[in-house]
């Protein structure tokens, strides 16, 4: 009987414990959450990320020194407003021979379907992949953050990964933000 009482007590605590661990956004210095994504159906997205043709992959599997993850919702007014800034950042990275291939951007559409992320990409001419997260699985993994939310991940050649940036809201001037990314990620 005592055992049952204990189990019931633990069951009552479990949601609280899960909520505590789930709602906290990732912090700089921590290991990034293990985010699983489907292979992009679009060829140019696969080439951009070096992602597999089929199946699923972990962001940490990508051989990219710096990955900037934007948690967004196509419905979020600030995400809509921020879209041209993120596009500009992408453009600056791709035009810099020293950075091209070393920093990649991935969008995660929290609560959005593939139809909705496609609409968002078309509307703002977004050149980097945005993965739908219709059931908020990834959104819960990253602490149910408000959107837009940017997470910078530094991947090292030895296979280790660390978060170097984690912040809610827009990043302001893309040039200044790019300098900040380079500095915080120690990207040479």
């Amino acid at each position, binding site marked *: 009987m005592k*055992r*049952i009482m204990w*189990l*019931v007590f*633990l*069951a*009552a605590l*479990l*949601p609280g414990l*899960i*909520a505590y661990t789930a709602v906290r956004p990732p912090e700089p210095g921590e290991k990034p959450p293990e985010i699983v994504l489907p292979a992009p159906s679009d060829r140019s997205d696969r080439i951009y990320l070096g992602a597999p043709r089929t199946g699923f992959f972990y962001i940490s599997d990508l051989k990219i020194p710096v990955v900037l993850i934007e*948690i967004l*919702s*196509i*419905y*979020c*007014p*600030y*995400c*809509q*407003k921020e879209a041209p800034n993120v596009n500009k950042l992408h453009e600056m990275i791709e035009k810099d021979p020293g950075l091209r291939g070393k920093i990649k951007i991935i969008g995660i559409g*929290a*609560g959005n*379907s593939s*139809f*909705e992320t496609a*609409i*968002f990409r078309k*509307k703002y001419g977004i050149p980097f992949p945005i993965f739908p997260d219709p*059931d*908020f699985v990834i*959104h*819960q993994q990253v602490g*149910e*953050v*408000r*959107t*837009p*939310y940017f997470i910078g991940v530094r991947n090292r050649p030895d296979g280790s990964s660390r978060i170097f940036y984690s912040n*809610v*809201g*827009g990043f302001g001037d893309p040039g200044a933000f790019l300098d900040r990314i380079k500095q915080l990620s120690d990207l040479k």
Partner: protein
Amino acid sequence: MGRVAYCMVLVLAALSLEGAAALAASEAFKGNIYNPGVLKAVDSVLKVKTGDRAPDFTLPAVAGGTVSLSRFLGKKNVVLSFVPAAWTPVCSDQWPGYNLVKDIFDEHDTVLLGISVDNIPTLFAWTNQMGTLWFPVLSDFWPHGRTADRYGVLRSDGTSERALFVIDKKGIIRYIDVHDINKRPKLEELVKALENLPK
């Protein structure tokens, strides 16, 4: 006995987690969103059905003046988007999404009317956080919820359902979605309804 207890634990944990409604709140609202928790999915009985003539109404608009449904008769298809309440989680990011598909509305010769039972000052402050909405936002505040009630989407607590009505140029209701109030209707469903409108 041990197995029974283990199952009880899992069931209790699952039940406790079930109430957690997922949402991605926009930073645009700066934590000013009141979360009412998980509500009864639908709490009203429709008074209209597809094929019926849409009840006419005249409501004050946040931008000033009034808007009548009959104004669009013979000219435009109309989508009515009832949202339950200002400053609540799902409502706050439903209408900004429609900013992305204005061209699809245009393509189908359709206007959108956003309707809430909140008063004009509340709607003014709330919709200002959404940026510029391209469609009129109407207040069904007084007599409270009369339009929502005529369509059968006024809930027992005085808010409205999260409901979409697609009305053709002849004023006939072609599509109704009284959605689970806790969830946002997907854009693709609405777009499909627009595509099915008589040409």
